[in-house]
């Protein structure tokens, strides 16, 4: 079972998607999940308290997932935060862009709980 103290930030402009991700994470044993509706709101949250993982959509208003990722990596206080992109953007160009920006993993929508669990294991191997 995962460490109960692990804190995750789920970022998506669709409330239904945030709810689904939160529930799936709960099924996997991750109970500390906060939400943000876009990249800008996510940054505010990240600067308020420490998160062990960010799970973010790509296409969002105000600030996109890739913009959020770049800002996180450029902020010395946040740079080491594991970041997983969860998106419908399936173009190789986008994947490469995310990798260049320092993403830890990249999950295509739609995804199953099993895939989410596998990818989280790469971030939390213990």
């Amino acid at each position, binding site marked *: 079972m995962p460490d109960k103290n692990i804190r995750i930030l789920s970022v998506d402009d669709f409330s239904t998607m945030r709810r689904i991700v939160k529930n799936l994470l709960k099924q996997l044993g991750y109970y500390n999940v906060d939400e943000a509706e876009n990249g800008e709101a996510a940054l505010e949250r990240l600067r308020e308290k420490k998160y062990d993982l960010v799970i973010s959509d790509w296409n969002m208003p105000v600030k996109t997932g890739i913009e959020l990722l770049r800002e996180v990596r450029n902020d010395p206080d946040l740079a080491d935060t594991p970041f997983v992109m969860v998106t*419908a953007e399936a*173009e190789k160009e986008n994947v490469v862009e995310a990798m260049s920006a320092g993403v830890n993993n*990249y999950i295509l*929508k*739609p995804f199953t709980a099993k*895939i989410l669990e596998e990818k989280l294991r790469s971030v939390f191997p213990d």
Partner: protein
Amino acid sequence: MGAGAEIGELVSKYTSVEEELTSLLGFIGDTRDTLGGLHAELPAATDALASITKATEKATHNILELVEKVMEADDTVEEALRKVQQYLDTVENDEIKEAATTIIEAHENRSIVMTEMMSELSFQDLTCQTIQKITNTLAEIEFRIKQLLNPETAGELEDLDKKHAGSMSGIKRLEEQDKKAEKADDCGQDFIDALLNK
């Protein structure tokens, strides 16, 4: 050619040009009327799409609530079943043992199904992202028509972005997406995994 004939030819050419210009003006006028009609219908189309997004969002939340309730109830059942499983080996009656095992397995399968159901509801996110792209495209078409009909009052594309900040901030991105779509190269999760693990 005498002066009279030259003048006659010039008048003829002028008349021909005038007729052509008149015809063009008529065509432009008809086109403006057609575009004006389309322009009037576009907001209704955008509204209809927005209402689809709202309706699917509401329905998805309702279904999620029901799934969550079932999962909560399942948590209670799971706790009870764990206790049953602890004492299963001490039960002598084979029928009871078998029944208890069946219940435990059925519960595990049900949990899996509930989790899958949850994942499937992400269709709403994908559907609405597509609708959003269509809405952005319609907004741009509306803007372009407005530019043609009333260039003085149309404003700038950047202003449209600001006016619809959030949902419309992708209008410029839309242009980039069009360019990208020409050389679209989608990949699957396996390819991405291979790329990341390289």
